[in-house]
């Protein structure tokens, strides 16, 4: 039953799930943040309402071709990354491109979007977007290093670059967050930057850059960016779960694990003020890098 | 030691002395004229040395004349004398050129001091 239509169907289902879960998490995060700051906060389904509103809007003006294609680029990277990540352990559900997946491919497809985003927002001619983009790219260079070190450590240790094989390894030999803890720490620290919550929200710095790249974008454009963001968030969470938490065998387990992971950057973000760009970069090249090295050593020695 | 040796040594000594004197003049004197004179003195010394080599005690001129066919043994060596003649002529030519150059230099620099004629260097 490996027909093309089956694949496409599975892909679309995966995307819808990712979209829903992502938006829900965003809403929850807004709620939780509000509560911590002793506000009431919007209901968790607020984001769905926003998305609906934005999607039904009609934009009256545009700034040229790249503005159209930029969000599309973004969407491509989000969807592809969610497609090549095995959502559940057994491939019968969500039979996507899992078995051709490859971590290095994943890393590249994940940065693909930010470039498209950069181009799209670049054409709008808004200085804030360009500034935000440069910040984002710089920060990316910052957190990619420990992140890649963690990945390399894992790949070297288990002599594979395929997520599927890593999952199988974890079926038998326990979660990676215990068997290779340093890689987990480095990965989590890098994740802080990846999710762009405070203190690493220098890209779309509210009230400083007027929300950076997405400024000058409204209606469908904003909807696309928002939804791609949510899908992307889900993809990243699933990736972490697959890498360190031994994957998930059914949706409930998946939700639990992803939400647990998701709490880390969010809660860290609530209590910490925003960095400047070079501070962020230097942060990532401090302890995370150190743990990355430890992970490499650990992978080579043991 | 017979007189021939003495004369020969004397000639050699004198010529070498002359050469050294000329060299001294060339190396230390600042006037172009004196340098040229030094060169000529060196030439003189060398010519003397050349003559001294061909010297034979009581030798006759290297000319075959009827009646003295046995003179070949007592002849002085003719070659050095020929050489000396040529060398003198050449030295004369060189000195002439040198003096003409000195005149030109004097017109151009208004001095004969070799230390002040250093437009061309490095």
């Amino acid at each position, binding site marked *: 039953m490996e027909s093309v239509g089956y694949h496409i169907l599975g892909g679309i289902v995966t995307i819808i799930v990712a979209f829903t879960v992502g938006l829900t998490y965003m809403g929850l995060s807004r709620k939780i943040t509000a509560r911590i700051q002793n506000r009431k906060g919007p209901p968790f389904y607020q984001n769905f309402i926003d998305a609906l509103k934005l999607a039904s809007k009609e934009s009256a003006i545009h700034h040229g071709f790249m503005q159209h294609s930029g969000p599309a680029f973004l969407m491509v990277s989000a969807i592809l990354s969610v497609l090549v990540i095995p959502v559940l352990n057994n491939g019968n559900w969500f039979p996507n491109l899992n078995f051709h997946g490859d971590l290095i491919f994943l890393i590249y497809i994940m940065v693909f979007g930010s470039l498209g985003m950069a181009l799209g927002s670049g054409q709008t001619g808004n200085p804030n977007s360009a500034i935000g983009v440069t910040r984002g790219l710089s920060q990316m260079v910052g957190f990619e290093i420990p992140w890649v070190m963690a990945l390399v450590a894992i790949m070297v240790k288990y002599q594979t670059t395929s997520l599927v094989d890593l999952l199988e390894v974890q079926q038998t030999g326990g979660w990676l967050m215990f068997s290779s803890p340093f890689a987990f720490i480095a990965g989590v620290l890098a994740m802080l930057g990846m999710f762009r919550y405070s203190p690493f929200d220098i890209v779309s710095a509210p009230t400083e850059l007027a929300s950076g790249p997405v400024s000058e974008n409204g209606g469908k454009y904003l909807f696309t960016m928002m939804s791609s963001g949510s899908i992307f968030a889900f993809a990243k969470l699933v990736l972490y779960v697959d890498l360190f938490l031994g994957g998930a065998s059914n949706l409930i387990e998946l939700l639990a694990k992803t939400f647990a992971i998701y709490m880390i950057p969010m809660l860290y973000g609530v209590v910490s003020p925003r960095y400047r760009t070079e501070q962020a970069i230097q942060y990532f090249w401090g302890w995370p890098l150190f743990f990355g090295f430890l992970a490499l050593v650990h992978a080579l020695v043991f | 030691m017979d007189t021939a040796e003495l004369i020969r040594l004397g000639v050699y000594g004198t010529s070498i002395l002359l*050469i050294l004197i000329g060299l001294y003049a*060339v190396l230390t004197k600042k006037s*172009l004229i004196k*340098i040229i004179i030094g*060169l000529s003195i*060196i*030439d003189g010394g*060398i010519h003397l*040395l*050349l003559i001294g*080599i061909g010297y034979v005690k009581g030798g006759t001129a290297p000319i075959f004349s009827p009646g003295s066919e046995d003179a070949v043994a007592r002849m002085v*060596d003719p*070659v*050095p004398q020929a*050489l000396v003649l*040529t*060398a003198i002529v*050449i*030295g004369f*030519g*060189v000195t002439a*050129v*040198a003096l003409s*150059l*000195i005149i*030109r*230099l004097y017109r*151009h*620099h208004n001095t004969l001091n070799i230390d002040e*004629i250093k*437009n*061309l260097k*490095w």
Partner: protein
Amino acid sequence: MVGTPVFLIAIPLLAAFLIPLIGMIWKESVRIIPGLVLAYMTVLSASLYLFILENGTYVETIAGWQAPWGIDLVFSPLTGLLATIMTFMGFIVWLYSYRFKSNVEFEAAKKYFIFLMLLVAGSVGIVITGDIFNQFVFIEIVGISAYALTAFYTGRNSAEAAFKYLIMGSLSASALLIAIIIVYAQLGTLNMAEIAANIDQMNVHYRIIAMIFFIIGIGVEAEIFPLNGWAPDAYTEAPGPVGGAFSGIVVKAGIYAMVRMMFTLFDISGPMKILIVIGLVTLIVAETSALRQEKLKRMLAYSSIGQMGLVLVAFGMGTKAGVFAALFLMLNHAIIKPLLFLSGSFLTFNTTEKYISQITGMAKKMPVVSVLFALGALAISGLPPFSGFWSKLSVLTAAADENLMLIIALVLIISVIEIVYYFRVINRLFFFEYDESVSVKPHKPGFNGMIALFILAGLILLIGFYPASVTGYLDLAADDLLNTHQYIDKVLQLGQSIIQ
């Protein structure tokens, strides 16, 4: 055959005597007759060379006095080759300077051409004579005419250059004479073959001292360090073609005399430390000081000295390959360096100072000459596919056969320096904008001059693309130089030795 080797010397001397007389009747003759004479010498030596290539070395005794009593002229594959090159270059230089400075008045032109002729004659004499004192005489002839030519321009510092040259020249002449005296006192003969045959009977201390004096005596003509202080001045101040003649003819004669002395006279076989050391020092000092020159001709002069140092190094290896490489270098240098001097003096025609900065952007004004100059520069710095590359390559391979790593490294480092300073000039010439404030005003090159340049450039390209066209001759010449006994036999076959 259109004559015998003696004509190579007799005709120019005779012409030098006659030209002033004829010049009284027909003024143009002072320009034309030397050309005819040089052309005749070229044809003569070329035909002689071809003749001896078939029939072996040709020894001519003068006035019936057989060797070792008389003076004899040896026309062997080596000397013939060099004589042909020299006469040819002499003709080229004449062709170039036939209308050079046609504003120059009658008297100056007369002196210039007569002395040029004598220069060539003397150099050829140095090469083909078989008698050391005769060689001394020819060296003096070359010297005197060279002083005169150096002092050609009255307006400039040329007299100073000539005077320095003269001091060194006469000192060296004295040294040479002393050496000759020592040899004669020891062996009682002046004939080279005779000396070579009996050199082992000579007291070893006298032999070494004689050798030292020979080296010093010839070294001034051969421009070895530290006897070459005069050379840059003379090259700079003499007229351009004369610079070409010096580097193409006179230096070659000096090198030949030194090499003949080392190889044949004192019959040294195997590597000669003295030549290698002197050559290396000369090479390094000259090339490094060429890097920092502001004057074009001076730079060329230093480069020429450096090349001669390289030639001595190659000779010093003492092997067949080394001698072959050295002769190849001499040939290439004899072609390339005159090209550089001649085209360079067209580029800097209207300036007396010849600063490199003065030819800035000249290629816009006189493109052909600039291209020819660039060709010469590329060739002399040993860039393929031009002729310089093959000679440099043969030097390196010869050194590698002897395992002289240090020499290879040094030569290559020096080549880098060469490339740098030549390309600085090429940059100025081609890729800078011409501006009247610094650059000299261009001078339209004469027709005959261009012909001369084109002949030289054609030779460079020919040897560069088809080196086999000359290597055969060079091979024969190298054999001839290395085979001392053959030389002795050839010369002495006529008369038997004095010393039984």
